[in-house]
């Protein structure tokens, strides 16, 4: 898998922590946590200034103000299916309501045809198969800049 940030490919440095390995001391820069793991450890993470990501599933994009999600370095949303459009609204909420300024990444079942939509809703990057890179870039070029909404 590769990460595309618009036209640029870069190496992923985030990694999930397996549930059985989830110990506070195992959290380090680049860990991906679930929202419940984040809730349990966010104070330590913030105190120790650890750069972690929080992941959500398109099935469960719920969040409250108490989660202080703006303090996470990266948020990854895993699409169960590309047909589930909730993450597009969730991305808007993260940016506009929860004031999240970090990297927002789309992963899971997403289509290159959705690239511009993702970017325009506030996503920065996508996790895709390396062999699909060309088609993602091709569709980005066809669609970029052509839209009506502000």
């Amino acid at each position, binding site marked *: 898998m590769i990460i595309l940030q618009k036209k640029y490919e870069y190496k992923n440095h985030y990694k999930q922590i397996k549930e059985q390995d989830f110990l506070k001391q195992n959290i380090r820069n680049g860990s991906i946590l679930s929202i419940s793991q984040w809730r349990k450890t966010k104070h330590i993470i913030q105190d120790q200034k650890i750069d972690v990501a929080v992941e959500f599933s398109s099935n469960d994009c719920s969040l409250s103000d108490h989660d202080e999600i703006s303090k996470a370095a990266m948020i990854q949303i895993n699409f169960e299916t590309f047909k589930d459009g909730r993450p*597009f609204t969730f991305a808007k909420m993260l940016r506009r309501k929860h004031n999240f300024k970090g990297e927002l990444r789309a992963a899971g079942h997403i*289509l290159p045809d959705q690239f511009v939509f*993702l970017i325009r*809703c506030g996503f920065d990057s996508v996790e895709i198969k390396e062999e699909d890179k060309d088609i993602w870039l091709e569709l980005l070029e066809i669609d970029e800049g*052509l839209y*009506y909404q502000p």
Partner: protein
Amino acid sequence: MYKYSDTDKKIITSRVKQFENQVKRRLEGKLTEEEFKPLRLMNGLYLQLHAYMLRVAIPYGELSSKQLRKIAFIADKYDRGYGHFTTRQNIQFNWPKLLDVPEILRELSSVEMHAIQTSGNCIRNISSDHLAGLTLNEIEDPRPWCEIIRKWSTFHPEFSFLPRKFKIAVIGCTEDRAAMLVHDIGLRIVERKNQVGFEVFVGGGQGRTPIIAKRIRAFLPKKDILNYLEAILTTYNQEGRRDNIYKARIKILVKELGIEKFKSLVEENFSKLSNKELEIDDKNIEEIFGFFRLPPLKSNTNQIPFKKNQEYQNWIKQNVIPHKIQGYSIVQISLKAPKKPPGDATSNQMIALAEISEKFSFSEIRVTHEQNLVLPHVSNKELFNLWNRLKIENLATSNLGLITDTICCPGMDYCALATARSIPISQKISKHFDNYLQQKEIGDLKIKISGCINACGHHHVGNIGILGLDRKGQEFYQITLGGSAKEDATIGEIVGPSFSENNLIEAIEKILNTYKKHKRNKSEDFLTVFRRIGIKEFKKDLYDNFTKKV
């Protein structure tokens, strides 16, 4: 009429390229059918019973003669020489080949047309009153607002993968000729304290759970319209059900939450997420309204020509209504000629109509949600000439608003979802009631026919609604009574056990007899009588005397 800007042109052209790419990937196996389906649907391409079907958008039902000619050309070159006008003012081609579709889209783009978002779980074509801009009691022309909403909703990055399809209608006066109250969002332009704005309705719809929309805002200032629509769509995209396709429309969400709770979520999104850049300023409004000015019509005292020809007189009485500019008329063209599938027009008829509209109506044609066409600005003195011309093309059927002016879905003759045929039912009705005077005596009556529970033929809101069902491989038809799609929108009530195709006309006759029996005077129409006496009387007359063959 609206004219494309450079941005519009670029967007449409790039969309054709994108679709071409999608078809290529599908054929190469890089897209699965499951992945391709929502993408093709967003370009109006369905897989039907026998072939693909392409639904082309006619934004708010407005067409130029040039566009109609192009549609005729496409019907001839890529289809079987006809098209079907739909209840959302679009047109469908029933036989295109997948590989031809990108080329068809390219042809359409050359006349500023497309098939974008005519299907799929996104915001569909914005529909409107076919008499928009033509009547005196209108507060404001709804078409510029439809255009503003069309742009905003096209390729909306956030709302292209909604739980289910989403339909919006806009009207500009009290009379509702767009079935606004059975839309996901209905907007009515209203005036309050010298300020013009919108009355907003939400959660209407037909299908297997018919619901009349609820009012969510009595008054919304114009400038806020897009932010308010965003607030509703945000709420729906987040909260709408995705676990069951039959419960995924916004009407179910509004019903389950209750309108008050739903409203509070919307208002919160509206106050917290509104975007200054989405506000519409006066300059923007003025610019868009500029596209929708009337052609240069000069008020005059020309009268409608009198001819001693009964057929012509019937047509004037039934199909022609006054224009707001004196001396002109609005001509409604029925696409419900006897023996013809309702809403269909042949390519020859379309070519003729394009020419006729150039000669008689400033090159403008409108499509109505009742699957008819309109020539909006015809000089009174030309009406007899026009009638003669229309008659040659079999486009002068005098039945607007009468029993044979049915709304009818394609049914099992085309549709993969249908459980029964609907076109033959409509044809039986038009054959049985083909006499104008007989129809006139029955008066205003809307029969709406759907070939399945999805209700594309609007049966729930027909004064008489007919729903085709499958019972152990045999077609049966359930009748509902008392529905209305107008400003007094009502869902019809099921009258009782369904009828076989052979008994259906007899059943309709009995229903009409009950109506005639209770009619107080000549002008009391079917719906008024139904509302006065209730379904019981109809039920009694219909089933008590019915031979047990039902």
